[in-house]
């Protein structure tokens, strides 16, 4: 953080290029390093990277503008970003942001895309989409490191540390403590240990037999979409190509999800083992773990596990002495883009580009990284796959329902006594999860994140399963003290911020929806606005290019149906209210003409216009 005067931007870029190579696909990784070192990406770095990697400077700048954690202007030496998920807000984050702003002598409030940077350059304060600490929020990131369990005292202390220019290494260690909070263990969480048994089993039984076990298990992707894992692996195995790749999607960006954080912390070996087994089955030599920027603090731990497994002969060339079984894994960092959780956008990002979804087909299984056959699976899927290969397909089938074999790991947060990680067999009803985590007086559950479904008490007998309530694991609880419109406002702003901008319905519709939600929240809405929200939401759901746009209006459409009162009680008028204030619009004319008499005013703009 204290930039030493001796390192020039050019020198730093040259060193990064020398260490990490000149593959244009490493552009994003170089940019992240420059950002971390200098608190922004200076023009000199843009020029140097553009020249060295044979990408246009415009492409470099476009990448900087795309990723929320990259900047073309300096942020503070201490770059602070508050997690702005609804669960952070429910735990009082807005009050704490104001407190820190005041203590640091900054003015105004940060908004998505608008950071406050202090004139002396020492500190900046901004927002981040959910940082995956919902069970121990409110949370923030300081220079990419997660700080949890914020309260007024902790924020006060942070302000002091910033004022004293104390380097992060000397900040109190407990600020950075991240608890696992595992509350209920099942098939997967019961035992974190492995000694390479799944890889051995693969080598003993052969790739076809291992794949047959995955087929038998009925394992489906745990990232939310639920595609059959064995089918994905088989498509990739049989697709023509010169190379094959295994990608672990650790871009856990869905608001309210944090189970991958725990799996990557304490079940790392099993996740890596699942990737290795997949590599053996499909014939891949290289793998990538795409780690969301918010989890950068896990990097040293992950690297050390990879290193140990190389030493143990479980990664690298001739794994466990098997001829021709070569496989190794690189970790690539994300930089604050929710869309990169979508597998084809993730691959674009792996290739160093803006994370814009690819046209499909072709799907990644036939044309993924470097246009070669690629398997992209969720962290939890790889973990389950490792155990399936080790213990056989029937082991997973021992729990769950016909269509949803095994268990699901939930990230439970919001209004409950015991937020944290809960593993349940598929088929578990919502009310049981609520009872176990100590939720009372529950008004609503948002399942599978901001993109998921809003459940009312009438839904609480429904079950967690692909055939009823599919979920990537996010489970946010709202009791009756909450105004659900706060949730809607938070999600609408989130999706407007996270839309990649490629297609019209998501790019424009998302922003229109956010503005209409704000209009209603401000008490200026009418029935007409609600019907417009439905209309826009429907167009986004039907006509968007990718899953982000298809699911982005869910929360609005769900709450309009199930919780109409959160809107109805705020409507100013029955039919129509204009979105601007006619009288205020005349203020410039009044100033120019020097008039302020009653004739120069419109009493009630909305009445005149309506």
């Amino acid at each position: 953080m204290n930039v030493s005067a001796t390192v020039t931007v050019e020198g730093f870029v040259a060193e990064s290029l020398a260490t990490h190579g000149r593959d244009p696909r490493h552009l994003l990784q170089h940019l992240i390093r420059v950002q971390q070192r200098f608190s922004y990406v200076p023009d000199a770095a843009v020029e140097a990277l553009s020249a060295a990697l044979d990408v246009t400077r415009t492409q470099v700048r476009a990448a900087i503008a795309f990723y929320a954690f990259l900047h073309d202007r300096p942020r503070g030496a201490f770059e602070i970003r508050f997690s702005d998920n609804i669960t952070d807000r429910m735990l009082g984050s807005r009050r704490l942001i104001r407190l820190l702003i005041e203590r640091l002598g900054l003015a105004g409030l940060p908004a998505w895309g608008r950071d406050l940077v202090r004139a002396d350059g020492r500190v900046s304060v901004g927002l981040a989409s959910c940082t995956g600490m919902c069970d121990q929020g409110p949370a923030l990131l300081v220079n990419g490191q997660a700080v949890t369990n914020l309260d007024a005292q902790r924020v006060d202390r942070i302000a002091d540390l910033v004022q004293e220019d104390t380097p992060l290494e000397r900040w109190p260690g407990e600020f950075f403590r991240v608890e696992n909070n595992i509350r209920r263990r099942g098939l997967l969480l019961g035992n974190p240990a492995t000694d390479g048994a799944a890889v051995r089993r693969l080598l003993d039984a052969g790739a076809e037999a291992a794949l047959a076990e995955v087929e038998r298990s009925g394992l489906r992707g745990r990232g939310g979409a639920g595609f059959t894992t064995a089918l994905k692996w088989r498509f990739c195995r049989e697709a023509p190509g010169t190379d094959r790749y295994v990608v672990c999607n650790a871009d856990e960006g869905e608001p309210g999800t944090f189970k991958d954080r725990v799996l990557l912390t304490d079940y790392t070996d099993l996740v890596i083992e699942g990737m290795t087994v997949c590599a053996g089955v499909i014939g891949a030599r290289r793998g990538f773990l795409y780690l969301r920027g918010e989890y950068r603090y896990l990097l040293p731990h992950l690297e050390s596990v990879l290193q140990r497994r190389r030493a143990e002969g479980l990664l690298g060339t001739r794994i466990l002495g098997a001829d021709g079984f070569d496989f190794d894994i690189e970790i690539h960092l994300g930089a604050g883009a929710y869309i990169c959780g979508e597998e084809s956008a993730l691959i674009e990002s792996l290739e160093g580009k803006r994370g814009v979804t690819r046209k499909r087909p072709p799907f990644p299984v036939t044309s993924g990284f470097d246009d070669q056959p690629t398997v992209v699976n969720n962290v939890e899927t790889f973990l389950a796959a490792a155990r399936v290969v080790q213990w056989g397909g029937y082991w997973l089938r021992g729990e769950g329902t016909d269509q949803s074999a095994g268990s699901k790991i939930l990230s439970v947060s919001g209004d409950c006594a015991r937020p944290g990680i809960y593993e349940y067999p598929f088929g578990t009803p919502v009310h049981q999860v609520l009872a176990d985590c100590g939720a009372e007086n529950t008004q609503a559950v948002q399942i599978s994140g901001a993109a998921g479904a809003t459940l009312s008490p009438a839904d609480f007998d429904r079950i967690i399963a692909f055939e009823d309530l599919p979920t990537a694991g996010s489970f946010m609880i709202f009791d009756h003290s909450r105004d659900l419109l706060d949730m809607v406002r938070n999600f609408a702003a989130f999706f407007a911020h996270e839309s990649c901008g490629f297609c019209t319905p998501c790019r424009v519709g998302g922003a229109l929806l956010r503005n209409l939600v704000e209009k209603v929240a401000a008490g200026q809405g009418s029935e007409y606005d609600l019907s417009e929200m439905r209309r826009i939401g429907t167009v986004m759901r039907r006509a968007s290019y990718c899953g982000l746009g298809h699911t982005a209006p869910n929360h609005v459409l769900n709450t309009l149906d199930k919780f109409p009162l959160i809107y109805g009680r705020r409507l100013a008028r029955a039919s129509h209210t204009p979105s601007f204030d006619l009288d205020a619009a005349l203020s410039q004319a009044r100033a120019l003409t020097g008039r302020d008499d009653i004739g120069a005013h419109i009493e009630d703009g909305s009445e005149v216009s309506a």
Partner: protein
Amino acid sequence: MSKTFKLDGREIPFETGQTIMDAALAAGVYIPHLCHNPEFAPHGSCRVCVVDIGGRQVSACTAAASEGLEVDNSSEAIGETRRAILQMLFVEGNHVCPACEKSGACQLQAVAYYTGMLAPHFTHFFPRRSVDASHPDVVIDFNRCILCELCVRASRDHDGKRVFAISGRGLESHLVIDSPSGLLGDSSFAATDKAAHVCPTGAILPKGRGYETPIGERLYDREPISIVGDVRAQEEEVL
């Protein structure tokens, strides 16, 4: 025997590898579109060409034609979706048709009319966007850009120059120019580039020519775009 699928009940022949859009255009059936241009790889971003196949909406420009498909290109639901998308594009930028040299020969305007959008609908964003007149032969008015990426694709795939790119994300997405100053005049762009002749709106216009064709006699003034076809046909003539 060629293979066929059904578009609004009419049999459309196609060859393997063709999209629904390719086959429809070849058969003389119009599916409204903006980001699609048969000279370039399908893009699928504007979403104006959505059609319905068994309750699922897909973009005709990217969906592969296949035997026996029943494609709906003209129901009220499809029309409503397209109209809403056009209404979105019109409030995202600053499209002042009466003051635009391209009016009457603008594909955005013509497609809007075709879908039945006769007036603005949503609340305007009124973004602050600039005009780049730094190039001697061509002017870029970013107010009219609809992010179809045709100039990006033409410059990259046809001209071999990579003059244009899209930067930012969400509603902040915007067209940028690859030059030290970010200005067109500073780039390697030339009026003879393909990229100068693919814009479906009035965002990229030649300088020194104004209102040569009077209003009332323009490309889409007498017949709708479904009969006349894309604006690019006219651009070719100018070249």
